[in-house]
């Protein structure tokens, strides 16, 4: 199992230029909306022709601009799962799954469809139309239809983006199970960090047509390699910083220095701290490292968690006069608000990272 993609394609307002090579089975492609990640999938499937480059999947050349190879979509054997599933509304579940199997003899086709119906728990809805089944069933039908042609690679284009939170969690669980059944490469595109993290062990970060980084999800989320990666993985606190020594950063805007466990190489760059890594402490637990007095500038409440906008050193003059953002539980917030300002925060040097542009 391996694939090699190296393509260029001019899009309306930027160029898609991707080099991606891996032997991993499931890769999540994480990027903002409009960063060209769906276009990448379309190029692999053959729906769109890249301007130049190569696409080689499992040793099979799908596209090679120099050798003038451009396999037809049928010959590529790609399973494509669309955002809205794109089931054929005029066909029953069975007919949908059998659509790609017309070249097979009748009894072989029936055997394959029956096996897929069983595998994806579609037992008794074979004769229903797509509008007559639930969202979860639609997803399973779409997946069964895509893998029916026994593809080498499965491409999932934002499969959960149209769902509400509850259904999304449920379907993600189902998808994790279903993907286990599939032996082949899977490329999964999303703009949602959580989806990428839950579905794939390896994540590629995408930024306006370029691949920022590909790596194991824990590495990417803990120590992003670039400013863009840090932003896309959801780091709320990113601020210009200067190197003082190997393990000490100076943050001029905040008027403080910050200790790190990561060795600082470059002279200047950005310091990052995730909002949930900012800890509120009592003076008694004070360790002295990366501890600051803060005042609250603003607050935004979620149902279970609260975001606090904090200013280091002096009271905030307005709602947007703040330095960093912290995320804590509602209980913690209530306990905190019993006390008087300023509060003490502590930032573990291990959770401070430094990136360059």
């Amino acid at each position, binding site marked *: 199992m391996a694939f090699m993609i190296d393509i260029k394609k001019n899009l309306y307002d930027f160029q898609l230029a991707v080099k991606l090579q891996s032997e991993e089975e499931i890769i999540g492609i994480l990027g903002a909306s409009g960063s060209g990640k769906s276009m990448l999938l*379309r190029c692999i499937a*053959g*729906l769109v022709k890249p301007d130049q480059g190569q696409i080689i999947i499992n040793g099979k050349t799908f596209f090679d601009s120099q050798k003038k190879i451009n396999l037809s*979509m049928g010959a590529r054997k790609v399973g494509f799962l669309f955002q809205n599933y794109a089931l054929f509304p005029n066909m029953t579940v069975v007919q949908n799954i059998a*659509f*790609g199997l017309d070249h097979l003899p009748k009894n072989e086709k029936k055997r394959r469809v029956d096996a897929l119906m069983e595998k994806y728990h579609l037992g008794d809805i074979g004769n229903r139309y797509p*509008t*007559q089944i639930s969202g979860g069933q639609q997803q399973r039908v779409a997946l069964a*239809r895509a893998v029916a042609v026994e593809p080498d690679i499965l491409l999932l284009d934002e499969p959960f983006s149209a769902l509400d939170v509850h259904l999304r969690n449920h379907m993600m669980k189902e998808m994790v199970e279903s993907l286990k059944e599939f032996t082949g490469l899977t490329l999964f595109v999303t703009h949602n960090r959580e989806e990428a993290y839950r579905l794939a062990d390896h994540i590629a970060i995408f930024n306006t047509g370029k691949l920022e980084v590909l790596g194991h999800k824990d590495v990417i989320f803990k120590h992003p390699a670039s400013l863009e990666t840090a932003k896309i993985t959801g780091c709320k606190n990113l601020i210009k910083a200067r190197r003082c020594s190997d393990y000490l950063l100076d943050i001029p805007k905040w008027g403080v220095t910050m200790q790190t466990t990561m060795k600082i190489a470059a002279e200047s760059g950005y310091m990052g701290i995730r909002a949930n890594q900012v800890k509120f402490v009592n003076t008694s637990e004070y360790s002295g490292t990366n501890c600051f007095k803060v005042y609250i500038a603003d607050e935004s409440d979620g149902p279970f968690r609260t975001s606090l906008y904090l200013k280091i050193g002096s009271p905030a003059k307005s709602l947007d006069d703040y330095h960093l953002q912290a995320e804590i539980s509602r209980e913690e917030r209530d306990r905190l608000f019993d006390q008087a300002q300023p509060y003490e925060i502590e930032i573990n040097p291990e959770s401070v990272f430094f990136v360059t542009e």
Partner: protein
Amino acid sequence: MGFDFSPAWISIKVTLTATAIVFFLGLVIAWLMTNYNGRWKGLIDGILTLPLVLPPTVAGFGILLLIGKNGPIGNFLEIFGVNIIFSWYAAVIAAVVVAFPLMYKTTMGAFEQIDPNILSAARTLGASEVKVFWRVAVPVARPGIAAATALTFARCLGEFGATLMVAGSIPGKTETIPIAIYFATQGGEMQVALIWVLIIFAISLTVLVINNYWESRKKKQQRGFGG
């Protein structure tokens, strides 16, 4: 003197033939135009739609130039001793030209409404363009196509101006119901005209109503409960 029913048979013959031709022609050309995005699209679309906005007499005049005794097509057919002007074939041609834009425009609208992902899905499953067209695009756009076909039928049945110019009104040969109504009225035979008016009224309404019921039945089948 018995009532001459020949205009009814001629009308039905001409209308069914023309509708069948327009149906396939309109379907295929609408699909090709939906998928064509070149710079000539606006011009080609304009030409194909023109008969809808021009008076039918202009269409009739154009057809006469082409298939008349001295027209290029008329000349060519003359070699084989075939003369289509003032035959029921000419009436079919007139109906086809005048009704085509209705079929083409309505069908293209239906094709453009199809979720492009559905067509992409068919293609990634290895479907040929012919299969994408017949198994996906046409069935998915079926309500629009059915409406277009019903309109085409009604337009062909009601065609008058171009037909009169190229096929004339030869009783028992090219005299269709609309032409019979015109000449009956001109000749003061108001009762004959009224009978034809009622007949054409009945045929048109029947076709449109059958189309509506058939469509809602199909819709129910696919939407079923809940939808």
